[in-house]
């Protein structure tokens, strides 16, 4: 059902969200399933790392290294070993959370990612709040007023969200709202003037400044985040409103909706109290997936807004051919994706009394 309903989306859930029969005996299956998926993620990222036409040895030593130095480095990197041994070492490294050193920064990749990740989390979270806060009501109202101008508006708005290149929208937004109207802060997370006034606790600047009561800085941070987050949220809104609408249409065709109206409930109360209750769980699944898609959108949006986050880090690594960083970032996104799918699946089982 979720598969069919998710058709308008670019795709439905990933691996771990496959239907599971019951609580009993599920735990083992789940663990095996996650293990296999993670193993597959590692195999795929390993292969991507090996496909590289660049010579990693030459990338480190430069082109005019001696033959001996070259061989020594090759051995040190383990590149003289058979592929399956190399893969074994890679798996071992990953399990020890050792992703090697990033060529671009000279620091361990994991340290880099830990540093840039809060910026992306903050951006994506504000984005999903905007996308969910608008997307769910719009989707519900569009379904409740099917084939009215409101419905057409929501559908067209959603299709635009699907079709607009977010990096372009970001550029246009900067031109209009920053350069011309001056309504929002420019690129970056914060004005440089405030940069050193923040006591980093969570590295989520909105949270940090709010906790410290630095409301002036808070406003500055907000003015920077609002545009990129809205643009990311627009994509999430498109997905969420569209899925919510289709879930709601399915529910509004049910007999219990007639029963509720027979009881004398108003249409809006029927929609929100009776029908919406039945789509909440599905919508939560969609929101979890939308959050994962935001990470994808963040790669391009962060580039446009010079947002010092995960997406820009990945882009820089890609352009520099820094495979350690690329592989680690890709693997991380895969793991987050699987985790969000799993979370959606668990929420489904927890919240729907029929699965208990």
């Amino acid at each position: 059902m979720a598969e069919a309903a998710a058709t308008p989306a670019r795709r439905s859930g990933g691996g771990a969200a496959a239907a599971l029969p019951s609580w009993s005996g599920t735990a083992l299956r789940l663990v095996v399933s996650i293990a296999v998926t993670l193993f597959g993620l590692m195999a795929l990222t390993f292969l991507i790392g090996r496909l590289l036409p660049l010579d990693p040895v030459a990338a480190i030593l430069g082109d005019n290294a001696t033959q001996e130095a070259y061989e020594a480095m090759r051995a040190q990197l383990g590149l003289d070993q058979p592929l399956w041994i190399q893969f074994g070492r890679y798996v071992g490294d990953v399990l020890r959370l050792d992703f090697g050193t990033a060529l671009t920064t000279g620091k361990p990749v994991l340290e880099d990612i830990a540093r840039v990740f809060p910026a992306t989390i903050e951006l994506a979270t504000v984005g999903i709040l905007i996308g969910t806060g608008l997307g769910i009501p719009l989707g519900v109202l569009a379904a409740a007023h099917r084939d009215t101008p409101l419905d057409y508006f929501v559908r067209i708005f959603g299709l635009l969200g699907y079709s607009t290149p977010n990096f372009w929208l970001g550029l246009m937004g900067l031109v209009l709202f920053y350069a011309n109207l001056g309504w929002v802060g420019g690129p970056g997370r914060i004005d440089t003037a405030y940069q050193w006034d923040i006591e980093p606790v969570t590295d989520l600047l909105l949270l940090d400044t709010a906790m410290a009561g630095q409301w002036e800085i808070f406003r500055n941070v907000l003015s920077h985040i609002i545009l990129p987050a809205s643009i990311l949220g627009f994509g999430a809104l498109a997905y969420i409103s569209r899925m919510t609408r289709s879930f709601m249409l399915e529910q509004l065709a049910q007999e219990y909706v007639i029963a509720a109206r027979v009881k004398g409930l108003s249409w809006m109360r029927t929609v929100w109290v009776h029908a919406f209750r039945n789509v909440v769980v599905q919508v939560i699944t969609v929101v979890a997936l939308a959050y994962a898609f935001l990470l994808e959108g963040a790669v391009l949006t962060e580039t446009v807004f010079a947002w010092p986050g995960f997406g820009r880090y990945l882009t820089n690594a890609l352009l520099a051919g820094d495979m350690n960083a690329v592989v680690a970032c890709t693997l991380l996104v895969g793991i987050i994706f699987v985790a969000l799918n799993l979370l959606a699946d668990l929420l489904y089982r927890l919240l729907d009394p029929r699965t208990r």
Partner: protein
Amino acid sequence: MSDASLPTSSLGAWLRAPVPASPFQARMQALWLGWRRLRSNPPALAGAAILLLLVAVAVSAPLLATHDIYAQDLTARLRPPSAAHWLGTDDLGRDIYSRLVFGSRITLYIAFLAALIAAPLGLVIGTTAGYLGGWTDTILMRLVDIFLSFPSLILALAFVAALGPGIENAIIAISLAAWPPIARLARAETLTVRKSDYIAAVRLQGASRLRIILHHVVPMCLPSVIVRITLNMAGIILTAAGLGFLGLGAQPPSPEWGAMLSTGRQFVMTSWWIAAIPGCAILFTSLAFNLFGDGLRDILDPRHG
């Protein structure tokens, strides 16, 4: 009613006949019905119109272009739209309108080639997994799940990073990221037809598995796969443009829209049109595929409407 001696005046009657007399007539009737449904769906019609226009522009690009798309003219750089340059000029004084016209060729080339690689790949893997079942199914679907564990842009980025920048590599990377959802869809469709009586009948006649899959299962999956790939084209175009924008797709001086946008980015604060125009082109193309794909789904795949 024979179709050979059909006078044109009764074509409508022939198409509307309640019981078709030949497979050909049945097929034509299905097409006619599809066309009537499409006609009553203005958004889908608009999408189809934009796509037709795009194809027409791509085919007749040399006729439509007013300037040489590579000719630089540093005396006329960053000009706003005017009579001489309908959509202005870029930082090297090249005519944006002409580059946009030729860029449509690249966009269509990427979209169709990626679809041409991803659709058969996904179809074959999905139908094989669904029809054979057992271990084949488990292994192939696990593979699909692993690919689906990455957002498609991230996967395409990783592949491009590994293969090296360039338009061909971008197409390969996009295709590699685009086949898994199609495989999953084809498998789901296969599971619904696998148990049907007509498949059992063909099997009893001694048809090989390969023959059953290719001649009887694949055709049943085609409508929904076509719908999905049309909707995916919108995403493929956005991904290709994103790769071009990051400098990992088509390389300068190619007039690929994403790459044009990327150059426009440096001048966006002063010369907004350099970035705005190719972005609009990407938006309209992607929107057209989405509109048309939605309409196609209503026609071919009414169950999911």
